[in-house]
C-alpha cells in the first residue's frame, strides 16, 4: 500500500512538471517573435511628397530642389551640417593624442589613399554639390544633397568627377516628389562601392545587397524579413548610428545586434555565456563576400606600367581587375573566412603626417584595441586589407599623392603616371613635407564584418574554434580555449604514465600466466 502511494505520488509529480514545462513555452513571445511582428508590419506613410505644390514645378538645378525641401524642413540643414556625412570628419578623443578631427577629409587609407587634392572625384560620395579642394561647400546649405539619401524613385545619380553634382539630365521634379525614408539603394550607391568599385573596401557590403536573398543576408533578404539599412542604422536628427572603425576611434553611437536581439538571445546558457567575450558577428557571419569578391591586397608599387603609352587593365579569373595602370596590382577573394581580433570599440589611427616608427614592419593604419584581459573586449571578425603604398623614406611619412585631375599635365598620377610629381603636388596640397624620395611600405587596414549574417543553421559551429588544428581563433593566443589549447607537459606526462601503466600490467599479466603454468606442471610432476 505504501509503495502504491509512493509510486502514484511520483507519477503525479512527473505529470505536473511535464505540464508546467510544456505549457510555459506557448505563452511568452520570444524576442524573435516580437521582432518578426515588428518588421512584418508595413509602414503607413504620414506624408505624400508628390502632393506638395512646392515640388510641382520644373527644377533647373539640384540646388533648387534643396531650397524647396528647406521651405518645410527649415532646420534640417543645421543637423546635416553638424554631421559626418557632410563634414567628412568627426570629433574624436584618442588616448595619448587628445581630441582630433578624423574622417575622409584627412585620413589615409590603403585603397585610394586619401581625398585631399582628389575631391572633385571623391565627392561623388559626398552629400553635397560642388565640392572643391578649398572646402567652400561646407558653409553653403543650398549645396546639401537631400536626394542622394531620400530619392525613392531610384533614378537619382551623381555624376563622375563633378564634385558631387548629379547627372544633369535627371527629372528633378519626379525625384523630389518621390522622397522618403532612405532605401537600400540610397545607402548602397556609396557604401557598396567604396574604394573605387563594387565591394572593394567592405567585403560584407556590395551591390548584391541591393536585393539580397535570405541566404546572402538573413535580415535584408527580400525573400525574408526584407530589412533596409536604416532599420538598424537608425538616425536621430540626421545623425545615423553605426560607425566604421576605419575612421572612428571612440566607442559611441553604434548600431549593435544587441539593440534588437538583447545581450543573451540564446536558449542555451553556454552560448549566452559566450557573448561576454565573443561578438555576435563572430559566430553568425561564417564567411563574407558571399556574392561578389572583395579586394584583399593592393600593390601600388606596380602602378604606372603602360602599353604603347596607354594605361591598361587586366582581369582575374573572376572578372575582377587584377591589374590597373592607374592603381597597381590587386588580389580578390570570394567567400572569405574572416580574421578575428580582440576589440573593445576603440581604435587608433595613422593620421596624415604621422612619422612611421619602424619602416621595416607592416604599418597598421587603424589599430583596433583590445585583449582577453580587457573587460570591454570581445572577439570580432574582421577583414584585413593589405597594401603596398607609397611613403617618403626620408621623412618617414605616408605619401598622399595627387591622383585625380581632369587633364593631363596637371601632375595627377592617374593621368601622367609619374609618382614624383604626383607625390610632390599631393604633399603640397596636404601641407606636408616631401623629400623627393618615394618608397613603398606594406600597410594593413581592418574592416568590420557586420553584414551578410547567416541563417542560424549556417552559423559557425563549436568545433570550428574549439579544435586543435586549424581553429578559426588560432591567431588569438592570449587565452586558454578548451579544445584548442592544452598543456603539452601534462599531456605528454599523462600519455607516458598511461603507456607505462599498460605495459606494467601487460608484463605482470604475462608473468602471472607463465607462473600459473609452471606451478601446474610442478603439481603434475
Amino acid at each position, binding site marked *: 500500500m505504501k509503495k502504491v502511494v509512493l509510486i502514484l505520488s511520483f507519477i503525479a509529480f512527473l505529470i505536473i512538471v511535464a505540464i508546467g514545462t510544456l505549457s510555459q513555452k506557448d505563452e511568452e513571445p520570444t524576442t524573435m517573435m516580437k521582432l518578426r511582428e515588428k518588421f512584418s508590419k508595413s509602414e503607413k506613410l504620414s506624408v505624400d511628397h508628390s502632393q506638395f505644390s512646392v515640388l510641382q514645378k520644373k527644377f533647373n538645378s539640384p540646388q533648387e530642389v534643396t531650397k524647396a525641401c528647406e521651405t518645410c524642413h527649415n532646420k534640417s540643414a543645421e543637423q546635416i551640417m553638424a554631421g559626418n556625412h557632410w563634414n567628412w570628419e568627426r570629433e574624436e578623443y584618442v588616448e595619448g593624442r587628445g581630441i582630433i578631427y578624423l574622417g575622409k577629409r584627412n585620413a589615409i587609407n590603403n585603397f585610394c589613399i586619401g581625398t585631399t587634392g582628389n575631391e572633385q572625384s571623391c565627392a561623388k560620395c559626398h552629400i553635397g554639390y560642388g565640392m572643391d579642394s578649398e572646402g567652400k561647400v561646407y558653409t553653403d546649405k543650398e549645396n546639401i544633397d537631400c536626394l542622394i539619401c531620400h530619392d525613392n524613385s531610384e533614378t537619382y545619380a551623381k555624376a563622375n568627377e563633378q564634385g558631387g553634382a548629379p547627372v544633369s539630365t535627371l527629372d528633378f521634379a519626379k525625384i523630389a516628389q518621390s522622397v522618403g525614408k532612405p532605401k537600400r539603394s540610397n545607402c548602397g550607391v556609396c557604401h557598396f562601392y567604396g574604394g573605387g568599385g563594387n565591394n572593394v573596401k567592405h567585403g560584407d557590403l556590395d551591390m548584391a545587397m541591393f536585393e539580397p536573398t535570405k541566404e546572402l543576408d538573413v535580415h535584408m533578404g527580400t525573400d525574408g524579413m526584407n530589412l533596409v539599412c536604416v532599420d538598424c542604422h537608425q538616425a536621430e536628427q540626421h545623425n545615423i548610428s553605426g560607425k566604421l572603425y576605419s575612421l572612428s576611434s571612440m566607442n559611441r553611437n553604434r548600431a549593435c545586434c544587441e539593440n534588437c536581439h538583447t545581450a543573451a538571445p540564446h536558449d542555451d546558457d553556454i552560448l549566452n555565456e559566450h557573448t561576454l*567575450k565573443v561578438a555576435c558577428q563572430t559566430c553568425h557571419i561564417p564567411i563574407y563576400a558571399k556574392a561578389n569578391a572583395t579586394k584583399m591586397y593592393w600593390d601600388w608599387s606596380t602602378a604606372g606600367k603602360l602599353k604603347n603609352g596607354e594605361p591598361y587593365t587586366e582581369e582575374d579569373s573572376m572578372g575582377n581587375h587584377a591589374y590597373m595602370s592607374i592603381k597597381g596590382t590587386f588580389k580578390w577573394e570570394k567567400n572569405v573566412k574572416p580574421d578575428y581580433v580582440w576589440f573593445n570599440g576603440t581604435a587608433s589611427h595613422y593620421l596624415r603626417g604621422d612619422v612611421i616608427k619602424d619602416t621595416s614592419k607592416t604599418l597598421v593604419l587603424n589599430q583596433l584595441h583590445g585583449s582577453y584581459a580587457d573587460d570591454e573586449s570581445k572577439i570580432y571578425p574582421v577583414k584585413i586589407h593589405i597594401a603596398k603604398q607609397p611613403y617618403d623614406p626620408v621623412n618617414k611619412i605616408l605619401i598622399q599623392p595627387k591622383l585625380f585631375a581632369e587633364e593631363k599635365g596637371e601632375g595627377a598620377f592617374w593621368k601622367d603616371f609619374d609618382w614624383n610629381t604626383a607625390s610632390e603636388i599631393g604633399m603640397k596640397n596636404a601641407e606636408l613635407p616631401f623629400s623627393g624620395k618615394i618608397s613603398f611600405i606594406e600597410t594593413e587596414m581592418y574592416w568590420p564584418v557586420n553584414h551578410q549574417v547567416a541563417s542560424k543553421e549556417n552559423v559557425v559551429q563549436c*568545433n570550428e574554434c574549439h579544435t586543435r588544428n586549424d581553429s578559426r581563433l588560432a591567431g588569438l593566443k592570449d587565452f586558454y580555449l*578548451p579544445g584548442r589549447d592544452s598543456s603539452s607537459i601534462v599531456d605528454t606526462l599523462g600519455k607516458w604514465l598511461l603507456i607505462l601503466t599498460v605495459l606494467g600490467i601487460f608484463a605482470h599479466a604475462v608473468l602471472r600466466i607463465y607462473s600459473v603454468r609452471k606451478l601446474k606442471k610442478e603439481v603434475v610432476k
Partner: protein
Amino acid sequence: MSKKLVYIYRSFERFWHWMQAILIFFLAFTGFEIHGSYQFFGFREAVRYHNIAANMLIGLVVFAIFWHLSTGEYKQYIPTFENIKAQLNYYIFGIFKNAPHPTKKTVLSKLNPLQKIVYFGLKIMVIPLSLTSGLLYMFYRYPTKHGVEAINIETLEIIAIAHTIAAIFLIIFIVTHLYLITTGETITSNLRAMLMGYEEIEDSGKVNVTNENLSTQKLE
C-alpha cells in the same frame, strides 16, 4: 578452514560503485573529446553530455558521502601502513608463486592496505580536484562581467589543466583497477562480488557472519 558465501557489498554500495564507474568512464570519454584528443560526438554534444554526466556524478557523490558517513563505512578507507609491505610483496612476488592473499577480506575490513591508501587518495585528492576544477570550469565566468565577482579568475588555463591532471589520474586508476580485479581468489571472484554482493570468504570461525551481524555497530 572452510569457505563461506558472505554478503559483502550492499546494494547501495554496488549501485554507487557501478554508477560511478559508468559516469567516470563516460566523463573521461566526453572529457577527452572536449580536450581535443579525438572527435566522436562533436564538440557541442560532448560538452552537453559531459555537463549532464557531471551533474549526475555530483549528485551521486553527495549521496555516497552521506551513505559513508551515516553507515560509518568511511572507516574502511582510513589508511593503515600495517601489512602494506606484505601486500606489495604479494603483488610483486607472491602472486607468481600462488601464495595466499596477505590480507583477509572480511565484512568489517573489505579493503587491503594498498586499496585503503589508493582509495583514500582518490577520495581526498583526485575526486575533489576533479569536482572543484570541474565546477569552476562550469560556473567560471569570464573576468568580472556579469559573473560571480567573487570568483574572478583571470584565465581558464589553471582550471582546465587541473581538471586534465585529475582526469589522467582517474584513468590510470581505472586501468590499474580493471586489472587488479582479476587478482582475487579466482580471476572473476572480485568482479562477481561487486556485481552480486556475495563473495566466498575464508571462514575464520570466530565470527559467524549472518545478515544480522552486518550491522554497522560492529564497526565502532
